[in-house]
């Protein structure tokens, strides 16, 4: 941790190691790390003192496995006490191998079973719109998670509803067994989403993708990252 000031990106490896020990590079290989950091550092209007504010932005981590990057970012941003990382997954710890919204401040959903986050995000975005709130809803899914049919139900719905307060970020490390001919973004584009495919390690490119205008259409950001190293 830095001695003074708010924790930054450079502090994430240390937070990571509190969960994983000294395994080399594991923190850097976490496919979601840069996406999560850019969202929490520069995009989402959220903070630990307003986790119940109805007008906060919503971030739904649908790809719930491998949550170390998520916990590290939540700790860096003050949602979690960093010492909680030291005994994660133990009895009595609120931090499991899948996050649980009931146990973790700042976690909008409990996840782990794939294919639930995107339909939940569509309902959340719809509910916020029906109440006249302008908050954004961002959901993170993995490319292999897109295999689940429930996601395709939700992708079609969000497109048809013109849910422009909804963003799906697909962390694409090409881990799906049967793949997506033409690329992941094509699946969203054909349903009326605005899409961007960017380098998932490039913070500037991610920021630009997340903050582009997309009136009347939901936004899909495909963040390409290298596979497991």
């Amino acid at each position, binding site marked *: 941790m830095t001695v003074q000031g708010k924790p930054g990106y450079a502090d994430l490896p240390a937070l990571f190691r509190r969960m994983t020990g000294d395994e080399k590079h594991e923190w850097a290989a976490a496919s979601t790390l840069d996406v999560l950091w850019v969202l929490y550092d520069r995009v989402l209007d959220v903070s630990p003192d307003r986790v119940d504010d*109805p007008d906060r932005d*919503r971030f739904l981590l649908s790809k719930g496995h491998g949550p170390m990057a998520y916990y590290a970012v939540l700790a860096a941003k003050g949602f979690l006490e960093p010492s909680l990382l030291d005994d994660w997954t133990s009895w009595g710890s609120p931090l499991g191998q899948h996050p*649980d*919204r*009931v146990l973790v401040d700042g976690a*909008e*959903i*409990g996840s782990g*079973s794939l*294919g*639930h986050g*995107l*339909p*939940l*995000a*569509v*309902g*959340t*975005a*719809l*509910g*916020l719109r*029906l*109440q006249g*709130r302008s908050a954004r809803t961002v959901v993170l899914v993995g490319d292999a998670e897109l295999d689940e*049919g*429930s996601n395709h*139900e*939700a992708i*079609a*719905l969000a497109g048809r509803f013109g849910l422009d307060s909804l963003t799906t970020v697909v962390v694409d490390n090409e881990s799906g067994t049967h793949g997506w001919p033409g690329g992941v973004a094509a699946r969203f584009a054909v349903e009326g989403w605005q899409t961007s495919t960017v380098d998932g390690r490039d913070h500037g490119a991610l920021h630009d993708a997340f903050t582009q205008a997309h009136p009347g259409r939901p936004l899909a950001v495909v963040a390409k990252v290298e596979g497991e190293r």
Partner: protein
Amino acid sequence: MRQVFVDTVEEVMRHDPRVAVVLAEISRDAFRPQERVVNVGIREQAMVGVGAGLALAGMRPVVHSYAPFLVERPFEQVKLDFGHQDVGGVLVSIGASYDDPAWGRTHQAPGDVALFDTLPGWTVHVPGHPDEVGPLVRRALAGEDRVYIRLSLRRNASPHPVVEGFTEVRRGARGVVVAVGPVLDTVLAATAGVDVTVLYATTVRPFDAAGLLAAVRGGRANDVLLVEPYLEGTSAHLAAEALADVPHRLRSLGVRRDAELRAYGTAEDHDSAHDLDVPGVAAAVRRMFGPPAAAA
């Protein structure tokens, strides 16, 4: 029952902006179009997920479809998107166990209440008359919890006041018969002249253990017959738990578990096949409680 459900929801929606309805084509023409009635098309997984998402955003969702498509197909969504997220919602089904048997097995859901028994925290209502639907729906919409309301084309001739526990419809000494929802009239006919207490339930979860125990203690024999319009023995574990400290006999009637009935016909035909018609229930009553008193 469906029309009362729709009318009640629409009336509550006029003054409660939290209430929104999610449909998957079924009953789409029953609701008047408005922005808080959302038809997702034939997408039952998304229907349940979207309903739970509405709840996450602070709304009170009503999720409605035919029973197999609401409960069985998206069961993991019911389990995780509502239960695990710890948000509330009102799930309302039609079709019941075999309301319209011409459609066959695909449209029959005798296991729905048993499935809810695998999930903590759900209230289950099984109204037996259209007049009971309004109060149940109204109460469900006003709350924050997770509620399943099982509507049916089957009905008793007259309604009973909607109360939280069981209602004593008849008092007797030779034991207790519990009738859930639309089977009450059948039970009353099948127990005519038999000296038993008949309890009626429109709310079956939570199970009124105290009410059952009191009724058993009010008679001379600790014998209980459960008659439910869905899978046989669905409430048997709760009845047994209620009577855990009382030596007792317990029998259950309901939709048979041992075979898939590959037949169409009418709902009445299916009642007969499951021994849920008056002769079938009367036979079970006779075996358990003895013959009716001789007619005067």
